[in-house]
């Protein structure tokens, strides 16, 4: 019955749209910008007293509004955080509305349905919420939404981790747990009030997003309860507008390039010389050298002839000088097509979009393509509220040729310059040709996402809001790994011919279901403004994973080709994981504002989770905050245009990364067997006194503005995590070597500051500059079991020590290479020198630096001249170090692989070689233990970098030009856009961000065209 009702109203909505489209009315077009002329997306524009006539601005700040047929029309424009404006309609065709910031945001009226129902105005008065500049995000030509988020908000740190298509590390204000990894530290993602997984977030279409808010402190997050202990990223999607249907087509196309060359490798001449010196008889530089030939043929009569032959071979090799960086990496292309329609009338509005994106990675076989679609509908219910529905889906596919065992990208640093794709058997890979190195492995991962959200916003009585949202988000991730039987690893496996070829296929369905019902009551008594609210929410997460691995597929990349008759360790195996957890919460909030000057806000939420046993199930999150709007004392004194203080305190329990098997004895079946029996395995050494982590945040901040030209936000925070969980080693007589325990207290504290200035403000020229910086430092405040904790029974330096930061990299101080022995030597604490094989003590290890860079920030530049817009974003990170791998420095054993340029010059070869960087190549690893076990002062480098992450030059087609098309085109612009153009760094290896030789973010250069009609 409900369904029928729904269908009827849906149909009615569409009829209404078509009717209104025929009945052409007065239309006003325009643009809403802030004082820096930055367009405001999602600003509400409506006719006063007739909220049915309303719209909101698009991503570029443009709107067009239908006007009722009457006189004395006042148009109101509002935007969250800005002073509302009222403009009298006198028949203008176009207006530009410049909005000013307002720290007192009581006027922010809502005219369309709101799905993010936790996004309460009162929350932002004392909470720390950073609004991401979505327009800049959309200007970045990057296929991965989450990587593009880098540098969009101070304190939100996004770190790329590898190939294109790999999920980056996303952290708000550092790791709040001793545990590393996403499960314990990733923020919560909420799309239109529906909790989504970070994988789902990664595949969203940036053009469908109206607004992203980064919630950082306890007051902002507490409404989400215990799930939000690592912060929240709240995404609001683009909704429909009131007015004629506006169709926008957006096209981006360009090239992706190879990017930065991290390590310069040798050319043929130097490589052959190195080989001659290293004297490895499996290298041509040595076996064709004169000395080798003389040594091998003592007293031979034709020795000169043999030497000449060797020279000829070397000269032949010298003809080839392959640059494998250019040869193996490629330029590829990038494209994005986006088509959207939005429109509506006073009662109904809609938005629909479809998007296709493709980005090619640096290495052939690595690319990401994505298709997404979205439909949303808002329908007014009489005069009391709205119903909103949205459906979104996506398909994305990522290909990669890199496996854990073999990475073609690393070949750049291994293949010799005298080798080529056609040179037959390789010196660097004996018995293999170039073709034997490629087509070794193939991995395709796809993600199919489906999400739907329904919400209702009612105002049954004045001041009383009843909101509810329910949603479902599903991600089906599939991956297929294939190693053909012809792959070298399979050839060498010793398996029978018919047992070769490996295939692994996995399907994982992650389903999130959530609802949230909220009642908010607001009333003003004279100077007193009171808000009270309550909510209940539910969140269910279901992971269902199924995978199969088998052999004998030969050359067929299909699970159907698995040979199921194989026994033994190549037997087909299946595995299955199913984990469902749920959480129920109930919360209350209260807010009070006096005279628009003083704000108080408090919220309490109790959450019960299925993860913990019944007696420990309920955990709380609460926060209190206060705001003081000092500006209200000198409203008319312009030099200071804004001044506001905020402070908050809160406490949240966190169950992130905790699973039921850690708290009670839990058994599961393994896919092996013993005789005729399955194996029932005990999953972990459980901890029956396991408690949730408690996060306590304290926050203070000030916002200040001068002459409406310069604004500044500074915030200080301290986040203490009590009962921090970690897998700590236990005596192995317990059978298990580690157990998850509550081990201590840690803190993350820091400062975030943003400065925004209008440097130039003339009629047709504007120049704005924004600068932001975030500083984070962590510290172990307490350990419940002594002052030090070693996570390995062998480690020399405690991994956690009270009073110390826990991302410090320790190592000895290097004295360089001993000119006599060619071995590195180190300085002991007492100043004496010990060799690389000597025994280092705890006190010889010094702090070399922070592994996680404590400083990060952005510089954003915007310049406008007439119809031209120029935008540039820089992202920088500093204060950290990373260890070098030095894997491209060769010794005798791996002399057949290419080496770093300059190694001949910088390596110790004989007694008396002074000031060398690389140790003697004639050695065994055992005598270099201290060099291989620990980083030292000469094997780490600063990971500081500055990146031009976005550059956009846009030309907006002037209205008179568009008019020539008979107003067929309403808006249009053309732009050059590029991302990751360059990275400046002192780090000597490839990528200071991911720290790997492979997987740096690649530059993308595109031309974009956007047309609305």
């Amino acid at each position: 019955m409900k369904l029928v009702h729904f269908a009827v109203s849906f149909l009615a909505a569409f009829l209404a749209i078509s009717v209104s489209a025929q009945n052409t009315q007065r239309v006003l077009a325009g643009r809403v910008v802030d004082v820096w002329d930055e367009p405001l997306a999602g600003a509400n524009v409506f006719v006063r007293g007739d909220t049915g006539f309303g719209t909101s601005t698009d991503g570029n700040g443009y709107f067009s509004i239908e006007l009722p047929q009457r006189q004395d029309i006042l148009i109101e424009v509002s935007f969250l955080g800005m002073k509302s404006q009222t403009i009298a309609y006198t028949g203008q065709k176009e207006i530009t509305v410049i909005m000013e910031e307002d720290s007192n945001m009581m006027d922010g009226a809502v005219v369309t349905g709101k799905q993010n129902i936790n996004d309460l105005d009162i929350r932002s008065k004392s909470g720390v919420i950073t609004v991401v500049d979505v327009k800049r995000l959309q200007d970045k030509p990057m296929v991965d939404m989450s990587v593009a988020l880098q540098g969009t908000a101070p304190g939100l740190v996004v770190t790329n981790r590898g190939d294109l298509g790999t999920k980056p590390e996303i952290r708000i204000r550092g790791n709040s747990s001793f545990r590393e990894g996403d499960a314990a530290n990733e923020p919560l993602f909420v799309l239109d009030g529906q909790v989504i997984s970070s994988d789902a977030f990664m595949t969203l279409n940036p053009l469908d997003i109206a607004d992203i808010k980064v919630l950082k402190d306890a007051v902002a997050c507490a409404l989400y309860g215990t799930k939000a202990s690592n912060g929240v990223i709240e995404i609001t999607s683009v909704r429909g507008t009131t007015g004629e249907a506006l169709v926008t087509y957006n096209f981006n196309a360009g090239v992706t390039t190879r990017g930065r060359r991290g390590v310069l490798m040798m050319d043929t001449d130097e490589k052959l010389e190195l080989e001659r010196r290293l004297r490895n008889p499996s290298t041509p530089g040595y076996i064709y050298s004169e000395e080798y030939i003389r040594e091998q043929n003592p007293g031979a009569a034709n020795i000169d002839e043999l030497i000449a032959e060797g020279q000829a071979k070397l000269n032949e090799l010298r003809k080839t000088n392959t640059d494998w960086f250019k040869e193996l990496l490629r330029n590829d292309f990038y494209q994005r097509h986006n088509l959207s329609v939005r429109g509506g009338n006073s009662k109904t509005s809609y938005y629909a979009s479809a998007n296709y994106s493709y980005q090619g990675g640096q290495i052939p076989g690595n690319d990401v393509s994505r298709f997404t679609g979205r439909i949303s509908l808002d329908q007014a219910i009489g005069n009391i509220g709205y119903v909103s529905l949205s459906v979104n889906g996506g398909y994305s596919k990522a290909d990669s040729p890199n496996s854990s065992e073999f990475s073609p990208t690393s070949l750049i640093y291994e293949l010799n310059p005298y080798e080529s794709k056609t040179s037959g058997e390789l010196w660097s890979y004996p018995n293999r040709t170039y073709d034997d190195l490629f087509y070794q492995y193939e991995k395709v991962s796809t993600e199919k996402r489906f999400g739907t959200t329904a919400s209702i916003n009612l105002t049954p009585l004045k001041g009383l809001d009843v909101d509810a949202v329910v949603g479902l988000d599903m991600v089906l991730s599939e991956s297929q790994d294939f190693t053909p039987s012809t792959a070298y690893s399979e050839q060498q496996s010793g398996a029978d011919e018919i047992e070769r070829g490996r295939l692994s296929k996995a399907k994982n369905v992650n389903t999130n279901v959530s609802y949230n019902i909220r009642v908010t009551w607001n009333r003003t008594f004279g100077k007193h403004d009171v808000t009270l609210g309550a909510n209940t929410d539910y969140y269910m997460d279901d992971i269902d994973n199924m995978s199969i691995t088998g052999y004998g597929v030969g050359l067929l990349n299909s699970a159907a080709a698995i040979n199921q008759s194989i026994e033994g360790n190549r037997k087909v195996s299946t595995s299955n994981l199913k984990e469902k957890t749920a959480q129920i919460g109930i919360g209350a909030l209260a807010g009070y504002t006096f005279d628009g000057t003083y704000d108080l806000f408090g919220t309490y939420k109790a959450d019960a989770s299925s993860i913990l046993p019944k007696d420990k199930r309920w955990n709380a999150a609460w926060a209190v905050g206060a705001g003081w709007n000092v500006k209200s004392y000198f409203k008319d004194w312009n030099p200071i245009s804004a001044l506001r203080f905020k402070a908050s305190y809160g406490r949240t329990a966190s169950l992130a990364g905790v699973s039921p098997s850690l708290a009670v004895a839990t058994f599961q079946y393994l896919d092996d067997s013993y005789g005729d029996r399955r194996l029932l395995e005990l999953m972990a050494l459980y901890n029956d006194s396991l408690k949730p982590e408690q996060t306590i945040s304290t926050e203070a901040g000030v916002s200040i503005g001068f002459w409406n030209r310069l604004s500044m936000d500074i915030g200080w925070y301290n986040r203490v995590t009590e009962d921090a969980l970690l897998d700590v080693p236990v005596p192995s007589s317990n059978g298990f070597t580690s157990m998850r325990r509550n081990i201590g207290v840690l803190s993350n504290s820091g400062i975030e500051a943003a400065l925004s200035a209008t440097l130039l403000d003339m009629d047709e020229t504007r120049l704005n500059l924004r600068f932001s910086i975030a500083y984070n430092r962590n510290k172990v405040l307490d350990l419940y079991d002594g002052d030090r904790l070693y996570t390995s029974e062998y480690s020399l330096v405690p991994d956690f020590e009270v009073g110390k930061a826990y991302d410090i990299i320790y190592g000895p101080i290097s004295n360089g290479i001993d000119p006599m022995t060619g071995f590195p030597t180190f300085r002991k604490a007492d100043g004496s020198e010990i060799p690389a094989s000597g025994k280092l003590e705890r006190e010889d290890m010094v702090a070399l630096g922070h592994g996680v860079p404590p400083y990060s920030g952005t510089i954003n530049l915007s310049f406008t001249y007439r119809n031209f817009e120029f935008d540039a974003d820089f992202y920088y990170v500093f204060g950290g170090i990373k260890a070098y791998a030095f894997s491209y420095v060769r010794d005798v054993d791996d002399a057949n692989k290419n080496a770093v340029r300059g190694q001949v010059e910088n390596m110790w070869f004989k007694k008396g070689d002074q000031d060398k960087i690389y140790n003697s190549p004639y050695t065994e690893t055992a005598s270099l233990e201290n060099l291989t076990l620990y980083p030292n002062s000469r094997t780490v480098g600063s990971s500081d970098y500055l990146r031009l992450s976005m550059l956009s030059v846009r030309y907006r087609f002037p209205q008179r030009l568009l008019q020539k098309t008979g107003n067929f085109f309403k808006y249009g612009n053309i732009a050059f856009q590029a991302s990751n153009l360059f990275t400046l760094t002192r780090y000597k290896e490839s990528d200071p961000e991911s720290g790997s030789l492979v997987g740096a973010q690649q530059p993308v250069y595109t031309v974009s065209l956007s047309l609305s009609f």
Partner: protein
Amino acid sequence: MRKNIIFLLCMLPALNSCLDIKLENQFTEITTVDMARELLAAAYNSLPRYQVEFAVMSDDFKPTNFSSASAELENLYNWQDNAITNLSSLLWTDYYMTVAYLNTLLTRLDEVVTEGGEDIAELEKVRSEALALKAYCYFDLLRIYAPRYAEENLDKDGIILKDRLELDFLPRSSMRDCISEIDALLTSAASVENTGNAVYYFGSDAVAALRAEFELYRGNYGAVVSAGLPLLSGAEDRWATAEYDNLWTANESRERIFAPYIFDSFYIDLNYDRERGDYFCLSDEVIYEDGDVRKGWCEYQGPQEGVRCFGKYNRMYYENTEVRYINTLRYSGVCFAVAEAYARDNQPDEAVALMNRYLEARGCMPLEEGLSGDALVEAILGEKQKEFVGEGPRFFDLKRMGVPVVRYDRSGSQSAVIGVDDYRHLFPIPQSEYRYNENITAGHQNPGWSYEVVE
């Protein structure tokens, strides 16, 4: 509104129970006999497999030209401290992992719901096997970590005795306590009649065989005979050549008493490269006469010219034959235990007679009548080494007997002798124990080994 809130508050207890989500593939209770058996299967599957390492440390093998290609095995052959420390850490953890499984099972057996007598009987078998397996683990640990059995050593540190799964920080118990614990475990395991099960389960015969080994260890020779002799009636059938050959196949063999089942590859660490050869080969002391049934399976002509490669599982690896059973306890082993007990208990004639039954079945020359004393014991142990070569028991015998371990270099000349009183006969307590267990202090580390705690 108020009603709603009251309603919601009333709903809370109900909400609470809707969070009792049963995980489809994860269980918190062992409710059926089948589940108990499956948990026991996981314990069996977790039994440590260090046959290669023990054999390399014993005098079964000598180096080949490839020995230096495996630093790990070569160092172990030379009894180097670091290598023993690494092995010790693995052994300790693995044996206690099995103990942890058994403790988990033993403490949950009372929760198991049984239906009918068959269920009850099966549950008792599970209990018996779990106890016996625990005794088996403790016995191995005791022989590795404690001094050799002697009256004056009984108050010295033995091993850690652990009775529950939960996290503990336990001290080492005295050897005396460890021995009486093993005794008690074997006694209660033996109280259940457990026959007719597959050979990969620890049945009554296996309990008796382990009892015989254990009594031999502590010099209770009469008890060795009374535990072992009943197993040897009609043993000639079990020692038939066909049964012996079947030991090194995936087929059944009546010679097995307890042979853990295996799906993975086994005994592949001795081999350097199938085309080139092994790191170690048979020692010159292990010589088989012609006609000895064991010769065909213990010696193997591998790719190395003039080198007697080790056969058995190693040969199976060369020939790509699947290993399904690890032949751990065998009737021949019981024979050696009983014969040695007779010999030491001044019953040389019984010893020789029993040995000759075995030797005849293996196609060997019988022992001389009238052989007695040390010469007889030596002869018995010599035959035992030939039977179990490469499988590890020799390592334990060397320590029990107080025989110096002679090491050779690649050229065949003697490079070192590990004396009878060498500290390395007691493996070091691993670092994880003394770094994280406050009850293992410096005084509890085995003598001669480092005790470094970074504070």
